[in-house]
């Protein structure tokens, strides 16, 4: 039985309202998982820091902003709408603007403990920025972590100038506020996202004087045989390219923006050709005037909540760290499931597929149903997942940052913006002081200790940390995923007001 009415913002979850399943993240994966579980009779709470359902892909205009036809900006709208309607009819509880800062395991002996004897308390702070007084804890017999991914940034000289923004950020700005970052937008970096971003920019009326892709992606995007194995939306890539070219966007495959110029804000970029390792080829630089640069190098899974609990991780083909999950989307920690980008970046369709698999598996598990013979639907989902994962790996391999990218840094390029740590200082920590991983670089330079806690510079610092330096012949060191806790900032007063644990006295 669902425990309370769905989508009623006036119905606060009590401090420890209990649910069968607590889903963290209401993107395609979390939403699909919540729907699958709720439709199978589980009570489900769906928490997200955002005000609205949909996550990254469906980040849509807030009601009232007067966007007449958001679907012009994104094609997945129909699928999302269907999922959202099913959710609304499912009896699940949506807790928007709930930023989860930790998931705590309860003692196995707790009465009413859930799957695998575990029971979880999911702690969240509330409000648009998590700054409201009210904090909330919900208890779940199972937890599905569907926290998605964050953009990977690789620094270059000038990247801190106003007007240089993340590609995903530019897209999100456009999707949610319908604002263009500038009239002439250079779109740069690597990954399939760039095409979508460039296309959105053009559709919204911007000029894209350069679409700069570090890999040879634009080449294979024109190969329908490769793309045919991919998800529908990416098949559209070829079409996107054609459309972009028609609108005057100039593609630069195997190139990178190696410098942004400007005083008050960005006025131009230097684009250079890259060799196979992503090292700029001398003499190939050219200057491209622009008002804004949207730059990103793909996505990295957002797995802080999971790694804090000790979930096993793996290195993905493109060098990111993702959660290890089994065919039922279970993590290595009993009672914890994960779906979507957290298990490896692969697009919205894969996220929805995994979400449904997870929701179905949790329902079977909590209701004690044997899954020895998966249903036809589950078998079909498993096939879809296998196909999409294989495709995602192909893409990831194509867009893996080349080892030579740090060649486009100067010693005084800021790598960590919060703490103003330069590439030179990181180099020193590695060469002279014996730092061999991102954590030690952080301790020795403060890179990643500031406001964003390394969420922006982390992947770049990790790259720089594991190159060269003293004792280099013994590298690579074992990958130690950072345990970043809490996942979002929490006020001291919120911590002080937590329920005391009677067992600890």
């Amino acid at each position, binding site marked *: 039985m669902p425990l309370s009415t769905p989508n009623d913002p006036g119905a606060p979850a009590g401090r420890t309202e209990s649910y069968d399943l607590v889903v963290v993240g209401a993107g395609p994966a979390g939403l699909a998982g919540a729907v699958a579980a709720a439709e199978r009779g589980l009570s489900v709470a769906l928490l997200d820091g955002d005000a609205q359902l949909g996550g990254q892909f469906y980040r849509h205009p807030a009601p009232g902003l007067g966007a007449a036809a958001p679907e012009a900006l994104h094609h997945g709208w129909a699928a999302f709408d269907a999922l959202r309607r099913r959710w609304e009819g499912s009896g699940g509880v949506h807790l928007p603007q709930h930023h989860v800062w*930790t998931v*705590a*395991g309860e003692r196995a002996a707790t009465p009413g403990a859930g799957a695998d004897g575990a029971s979880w*308390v999911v*702690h969240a702070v509330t409000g648009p920025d998590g700054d409201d007084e009210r904090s909330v804890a919900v208890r779940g017999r199972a937890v599905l972590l569907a926290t998605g991914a964050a953009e990977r940034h690789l620094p270059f000289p000038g990247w801190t100038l106003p007007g240089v923004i993340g590609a995903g950020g530019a897209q999100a700005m456009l999707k949610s506020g319908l604002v263009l970052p500038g009239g002439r937008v250079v779109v740069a970096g690597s990954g399939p996202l760039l095409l979508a971003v460039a296309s959105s920019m053009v559709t919204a009326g911007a000029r894209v004087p350069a679409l700069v892709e570090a890999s040879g992606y634009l080449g294979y995007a024109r190969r329908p045989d490769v793309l045919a194995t991919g998800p529908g939306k990416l098949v559209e890539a070829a079409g996107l390219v054609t459309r972009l070219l028609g609108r005057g966007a100039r593609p630069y495959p195997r190139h990178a923006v190696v410098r942004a110029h400007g005083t008050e804000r960005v006025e131009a970029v230097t684009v250079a050709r890259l060799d196979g390792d992503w090292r700029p080829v001398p003499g190939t630089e050219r200057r491209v005037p622009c008002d804004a640069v949207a730059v990103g190098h793909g996505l990295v899974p957002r797995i802080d909540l999971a790694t*804090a*609990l*000790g979930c096993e991780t793996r290195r993905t083909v493109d060098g990111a760290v993702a959660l290890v999950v089994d065919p039922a989307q279970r993590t290595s920690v009993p009672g914890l499931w994960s779906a979507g980008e957290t298990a490896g970046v692969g697009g919205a369709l894969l996220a929805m597929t995994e979400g449904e698999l997870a929701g179905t598996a949790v329902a079977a598990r909590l209701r004690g149903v044997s899954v020895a013979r998966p249903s036809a639907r589950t078998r079909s989902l498993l096939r879809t997942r296998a196909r999409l994962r294989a495709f995602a790996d192909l893409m990831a391999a194509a867009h893996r940052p080349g080892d030579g990218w740090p060649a486009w840094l100067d010693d005084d390029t800021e790598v960590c913006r919060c*703490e103003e740590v330069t590439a030179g200082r990181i180099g020193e*920590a590695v060469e*002279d*002081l*014996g*730092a*061999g*991983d991102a*954590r*030690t670089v952080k*301790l*020795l330079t*403060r890179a990643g*200790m*500031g*406001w964003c*806690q390394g969420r922006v510079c982390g992947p770049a610092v990790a790259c720089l940390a594991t190159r060269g330096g*003293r*004792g*280099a*012949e*013994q*590298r*690579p*060191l*074992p990958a*130690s995923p950072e*345990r*970043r*806790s*809490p996942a979002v*900032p*929490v*006020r*001291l*007063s*919120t*911590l*002080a007001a*937590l329920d*005391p*644990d009677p067992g*600890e006295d």
Partner: protein
Amino acid sequence: MPTRHPTAASDVIVVGAGMIGAACAYYASRAGLSVTVLDRGPVAGGTTGAGEGNLLVSDKEPGPELDLALLSHRLWLELAPALRAEAEFEPKGGLVVASDETRLDALRRFAKAQGDAGVVTVEIPGDRLHDLEPRLAEGLAGAFHYPQDAQVQPALAASHLLRAAGARLRLGEEVTALLTGPDGAVRGVRTANGSRLHAPRVVNAAGTWGGAFARLAGTELPVLPRRGFVLVTEPLPRLVRHKVYAADYVADVASDSAALQTSAVVEGTPAGPVLIGATRERVGFDRTPSTEALRRLALGAARLFPVLAGVRVMRAYAGFRPYLPDHLPAIGPDPRVPGLLHACGHEGAGIGLAPATGLLVSRFLTGTAPGLDIRPFRPERFSPELLGETA
């Protein structure tokens, strides 16, 4: 420069590139010995990178640990000023506050005994507390100021000491065996990649893993992990000037209980964030977040500094202090394995006690008089049958 020669010999091999290993390498080098330091991870990748950098005399009762702390205090001040600066050394002083008269009385007795042992203590009456700490809570009974308490950033301290030592550094290399000769004496170590490194002396500076290393070396040292959590706030203007903690803390440190004990030590850092630490629990190597530990730290800190209540915590991290049953480190030669020395088990004070430990180890290595009663630190003290032979 790391050497590529697989059988390169040095006078000493130090196992562990934490604060203790760094200090051992530093003082051994200064005594003229050639040193190789090995670690399976990066520099400061163990407990040194997971704790705080309080150099405290204030929390130690008169006895062997206080003697080590006072010696360390002198040694910190003797280090080259540039090295101290690199380590972010700050002689900021500690302030131990008592909430009521009973606690203040106890603290007064404690401070008196410390004073007799050489600690500088200054009583601060309740109505003068805000001269030292303007943001401290109202209504506290009084406090003691300990000007000798200081602070460093542990990872910086360890890495810069190591650099100053000029030791050969081999990182990412786990020591898997002790090499001994036919007479049982140490000859060197073998590492996971098959390298054999030669030295007549090996120092066990493996911290919380010192017990495991001792076993691997064919001897015994009952080092156990004691978990601690630390909270880190968003960067703030200087709100907290000293290391401030409540008087109950002193009781926790010496406790034998395995349960969670908390007394928040609150301190500002040069970069802005306030550190709040640390809990003490014996739960093995479990890093999963404990909301109870966070609650108690937050509560303790907000009681001392109400201004912190609205401040955001950016991060909470856990580390594992290396502790021995009598809460004293093991420092010195192991009579069971000639050539093996131990320097581990410093529990919650390894950063502070590192220089004294390093100096003592270098004196053992060079056969110089230690200049301090070292019997309380003898590694074999947990094997009573051995004590008679070596006393």
